[in-house]
């Protein structure tokens, strides 16, 4: 039995009197993709926030490669985030500095973890920049001049440059047009298989989840109502809410 890349046990988050999520437990093995679906306000992003060390759990444990993250604070916590966790958000400007070049945004995570050789940093940034299929010759252009799809690619490159153990995706393709969406999803799937990174993807779009996720959690009102292998959950939903979710999908 290998150590899971990410272990969440009985995770509960309260925002004052409001429940963020309650009693969430799951494992993600290296190379595995876990999807989390649910409607807005169901607690998906809260769970992801705890995995990404942005939020402190009210109760419960989050372990990264077997290491309890509650004990990691301050500079070590920041280092852990920059080294072992990659994050791709829906709104690129929350993760990227728009006035800084694409290369700079990618390099920042290396600089934050103590890399100090310019040529070596440049070579790593260049490699991952081309891996996410960004246009050659734009690496030193400010991200503000990039389109929405390109910004998502910069985010993916930034997330993967440190070779993290866990990649967290929060609605990575929401708001992009469908053709760009399809190409980004292809890219994510290819890179995930290539690197073998453990991945958690949050989406309200079942098509995205069906394409990427091996296993699936369905959340509602802060709780997991159904969990299982993606194909099983989506083709044979057992919980009434999951049934509603699956039947609500628009057919083209």
């Amino acid at each position, binding site marked *: 039995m290998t150590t899971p890349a990410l272990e969440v046990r009985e995770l509960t988050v309260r925002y004052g009197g409001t429940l963020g999520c309650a009693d969430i437990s799951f494992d993600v093995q290296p190379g595995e993709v876990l999807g989390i679906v649910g409607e807005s306000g169901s607690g998906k992003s809260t769970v992801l926030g705890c995995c990404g060390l942005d939020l402190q759990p009210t109760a419960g444990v989050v372990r990264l490669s077997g290491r309890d993250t509650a004990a990691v604070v301050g*500079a070590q916590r920041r280092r852990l985030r920059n080294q072992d966790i990659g994050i791709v958000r829906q709104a690129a400007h929350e993760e990227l500095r728009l006035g800084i070049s694409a*290369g700079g945004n990618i*390099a*920042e995570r290396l*600089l934050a973890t103590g890399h100090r050789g310019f040529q070596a940093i440049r070579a790593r940034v260049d490699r991952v920049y081309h891996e996410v299929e960004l246009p050659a010759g734009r*690496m*030193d252009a400010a991200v503000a001049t990039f389109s929405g799809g390109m910004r998502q690619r910069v985010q993916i490159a930034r997330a993967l440059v440190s070779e993290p153990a866990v990649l967290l995706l929060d609605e990575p393709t929401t708001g992009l047009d469908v053709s760009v969406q399809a190409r980004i999803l292809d890219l994510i799937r290819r890179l995930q298989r290539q690197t073998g990174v453990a991945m958690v993807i949050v989406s309200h779009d079942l098509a995205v989840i069906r394409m990427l996720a091996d296993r699936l959690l369905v959340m509602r009102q802060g709780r997991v109502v159904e969990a299982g292998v993606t194909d099983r959950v989506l083709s044979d939903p057992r919980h009434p809410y999951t049934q509603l979710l699956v039947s609500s999908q628009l057919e083209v």
Partner: protein
Amino acid sequence: MSALSDLLHRAEPIHISGYLWAYLDAASKREIRRALLKAVCIPGHITPFASREMPVARGWGSGGLQVTLATIVASDTVKVIDQGDDESLNARTMRALIADSTGVETATDARAATLIQTRHRIPEDDLDDRTVLVFQVPISDPLREFEQRPTAARRMHAERDYAVIWLGLYEDHARFSRSRFSHSYPCEVEGGYIISTTPIPRFDVPRLHQAPFLSLFGAGREAAVYAIPPYTDVTPITFTDREFEIESFDTPCAKCGAEDSYLTEEIVNGRRAAVCSDTARCRRRQAEKGPR
């Protein structure tokens, strides 16, 4: 710097032209000295202090002036420069205030001075361990450009979270193949905090490393001081495969012929010419060379 008699002398207000000795009242001096002591004890740490209203506008050396007036003793010899020049208006007025309110000696020769208040330069003469250098600081925090929230910047200093400064350096090298810092080059002090060597040119930065003199930085508008104690490591940050470079000049000084000094542009005999920024040293070299 301070003999016992000086301390006694300083504690007692003497009225010169209607002001307290060294202008500031005793409580203000004590508060500023306490902040300075803390700053010296934690090299490079930006230490807040209760910046006073001074008879110069904030941004015109009010911080440096407060540091000078809080640390000066009667036996000091004071030199004040602005861009290396003893005779600029700003330097002259502040020197007059310091001298008139204390009666201390003034000098233009850096080797004779024990307290040097400066903006933009370190005097090029060798300074010894009797010298205190007081810098007038416009922007104290090297993180300011990247992080405007003071609370966030304080946390970043505490955790030595300087990735954004390195990011600025990365951008410069990626786009221009060199660093664009002309002044205020960020330096690591004793392997800890990164400070802004403000606003001296890169040319002067190596002189801060293991310097025998005490450097005090005063920012009046920002109400902050920081310090580099004598014999402290000051390392300009740079990538391991990129050299830190100082400015170099392709002509000697048009007045004294020096080839090892920092030059500025000036009109000499109706023509643009590169001349020493350190005017006192330039004049001495001219005198040594004799009339042309």
